[in-house]
């Protein structure tokens, strides 16, 4: 992609005099901003807070599980720890992570727009998110919730003695922030593309955000109504999930998973989009099978709506329903595998350079593959009965969510950091952190596959002594993983002041977002770019000295 109007590119080593960060100064200019780039940064700071709190909960759980006896915390506290870890990580970190931070920042730039379609709503969605987060934190401070992130009835409606309603209200409010973001992204992608930027010239990250938005818009309202019905039932004493009235608690599970399974794809599709950007850039190649990768995103989004029953194989759901859900779940493997194969084929004969974002991307491909394959074990009815509610499930979805989404988020954050801040992070520290994260992650979660297969159930604070070895390995891994996350926090902050100036396009990448200054101007481009070709035109763009500027 080349813009007809050559934005006067700063030469390396100089920063533009005015850009979106210094065009207005002061707290008020941030809290009332409608600039998609600043809103992305607001989201980044907010989700970081929730990530830290939820990580502390995880650390406490891993410490408890170091020994077989339940000695560090009581079983009740342990229940609250895994609930807060799940609720905050899912709704207040993972779901907004790539869409609301990186998506907000780069989507309008990638399509050559000045902003999203509804900038004020965009800011409003952040306020809703903060309000939802505040409600969740308030329930935490008042004593927490012990239902698990799934809020299953009748425990949540009748028996739990914790602050279920305020926590559910927090998730409810944050849900509307997701809906607004999804609506905004879809409208932006439909209406605001630069001249010449047809649908099949869109970067794959835009495709994946579009597919994600479809899920955000169509699945989140079902969660909202479900949590509302659950909360009203808890408050009022009777309700539609109440067996006393002839109500069915399993109906709650159907409604909950109708949202929460697609939500899993909210937590992986944007990551896949980032990986497509990284793999092409750092192997200097056109993506292999562009149309298939784009269509696979849509296929995953659509298939994701019809597989929720695989969470309920042991819930008294009809065995025929179970068989259908099992087959449909297998189908999701096809578009997922297409992506993995196409990324691998893109690497083939590419000029690969192992910069930090690329290390995260390669880590993603391996870990996502393991997570996806073990998902097939779980989609198999008979195997699921054996490993259901065990650590096998925990390990499986952490390979997708942490090994997949968080790796992609970190890779994307490193990749676009020079664009966001105008400065480079220290490359050696970056590579080190990526390796530590990869090693720590595997050491934490691989032993959990074995634990689960041997029969250790999830959500217990004590366990038989024969499981201790793998639990010790897992806790040791978690400590290493913690360092892997702490390092970037330190060097990113350091780079804000001391990082080398990046210049407009330090990776020699092709996307439109790289054709404007770093940090970009308030409205991204001096003149609207005109797109004349396909994305990822790497081989064409290469000149004689190909070696990527070592940064």
């Amino acid at each position: 992609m080349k813009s007809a109007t050559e934005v006067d590119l700063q030469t390396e080593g100089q920063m533009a005099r005015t850009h979106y960060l210094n065009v207005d100064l002061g707290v008020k200019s941030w809290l009332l901003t409608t600039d998609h780039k600043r809103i992305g940064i607001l989201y980044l700071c907010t989700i970081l807070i929730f990530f830290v709190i939820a990580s502390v909960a995880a650390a406490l759980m891993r410490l408890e599980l170091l020994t077989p006896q339940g000695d560090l915390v009581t079983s009740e506290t342990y229940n609250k720890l895994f609930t807060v870890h799940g609720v905050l990580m899912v709704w207040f970190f993972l779901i907004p992570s790539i869409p609301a931070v990186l998506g907000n920042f780069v989507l309008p730039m990638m399509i050559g727009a000045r902003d999203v379609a509804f900038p004020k709503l965009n800011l409003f969605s952040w306020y809703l998110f903060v309000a939802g987060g505040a409600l969740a934190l308030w329930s935490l401070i008042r004593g927490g919730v012990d239902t698990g992130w799934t809020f299953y009835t009748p425990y949540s409606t009748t028996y739990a003695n914790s602050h279920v309603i305020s926590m559910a209200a927090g998730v409810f409010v944050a849900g509307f922030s997701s809906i607004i973001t999804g609506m905004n992204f879809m409208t932006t992608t439909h209406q605001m593309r630069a001249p010449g930027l047809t649908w099949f010239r869109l970067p794959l990250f835009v495709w994946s955000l579009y597919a994600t938005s479809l899920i955000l818009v169509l699945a989140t309202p079902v969660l909202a109504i479900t949590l509302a019905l659950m909360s009203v039932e808890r408050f009022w004493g009777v309700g539609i999930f109440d067996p006393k009235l002839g109500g069915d608690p399993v109906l709650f599970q159907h409604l909950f998973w109708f949202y929460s399974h697609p939500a899993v794809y909210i937590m992986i599709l944007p990551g896949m989009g980032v990986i497509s950007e990284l793999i092409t850039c750092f192997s200097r190649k056109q993506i292999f099978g562009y149309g298939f990768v784009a269509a696979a995103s849509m296929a995953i989004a659509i298939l994701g709506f019809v597989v929720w029953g695989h969470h309920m194989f042991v819930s008294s759901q009809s065995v025929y329903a179970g068989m259908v859900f099992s087959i449909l779940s297998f189908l999701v493997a096809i578009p997922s595998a297409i992506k993995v194969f196409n990324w691998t084929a893109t690497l083939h004969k590419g000029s690969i350079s192992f910069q930090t974002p690329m290390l995260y991307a390669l880590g993603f491909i391996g870990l996502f593959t393991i997570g996806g394959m073990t998902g097939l074990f779980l989609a198999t009815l008979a195997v699921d009965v054996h490993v259901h509610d065990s650590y096998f499930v925990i390990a499986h979805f952490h390979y997708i969510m942490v090994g997949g989404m968080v790796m992609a988020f970190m890779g994307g954050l490193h990749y676009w950091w020079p664009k966001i801040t105008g400065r480079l992070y220290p490359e050696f520290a970056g590579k080190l952190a990526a390796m530590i994260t990869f090693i720590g992650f595997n050491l934490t979660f691989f032993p959990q596959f074995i634990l689960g297969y041997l029969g250790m159930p999830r959500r217990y604070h004590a366990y038989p002594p024969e499981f201790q070895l793998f639990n010790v390995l897992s806790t040791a891994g978690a400590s290493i993983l913690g360092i892997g996350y702490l390092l970037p926090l330190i060097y990113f902050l350091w780079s804000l002041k001391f990082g080398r100036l990046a210049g407009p396009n330090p990776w020699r990448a092709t996307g439109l977002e790289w054709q404007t200054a770093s940090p970009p101007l308030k409205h991204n481009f001096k003149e609207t770019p005109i797109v004349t070709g396909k994305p990822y035109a790497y081989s064409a763009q290469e000149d004689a000295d190909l070696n990527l500027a070592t940064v």
Partner: protein
Amino acid sequence: MPILTSPPSESALVAEQFDDIEQQRDAAKLGMWIFLASEVLFFGGLFLSYTIYRFTYGHVFMETSRRLDVVLGGTNTAVLLVSSLLMAFAVRAAQLDQRRALVRLLLGTALLGCVFMSIKMVEYHKDYVEHLVPGTHFEWTGADPSNAELFFWIYFAMTGLHAIHVTVGIGVLLVLALLASRGKFSGGNYNAIEIGGLYWHFVDVVWVFLFPLLYLVGHR
């Protein structure tokens, strides 16, 4: 639809992220349709629950449905349908730049919304007096009292959620009427009227489904 081309006044109406007023209008409409799709799924959870329990306890639902007041419900259906007609006229008035007609039609629509809510409140009061509100207060002399209670729970949940939407809609209409009286929507800038209208029609359509499902299933 007349496309207005008067660049100087038009450029002032176009927000900075858009190229022209047409793009702005298309974006607003698309955004609203996407939001309404989301709303359909929001109500969808309740419609699904209704369907499942109606399937399971069909005979009880028939019997309990007869306790609802078809006359009041029917009147309310007519009220909302007429309000939607006025809203459609309001959009037309906005397109033709007829300010006074626009304000009157918006106020008329809001007024009918208020009539709907008043009738709904009368009905709720009647239900309360007749001990039809689920909870400790609930009394049912027929067969299967607990399943009857379930029906009324769904009835209150569905009509209650709908009533919240009507109330929000009335608020939106009043704000639009106020802005219209100040001439905010002149010269082709009637986006807000159109998307407000879409929302009002949506609220109307939801009721068109609720009325037969709740009030008419017991009648032959």
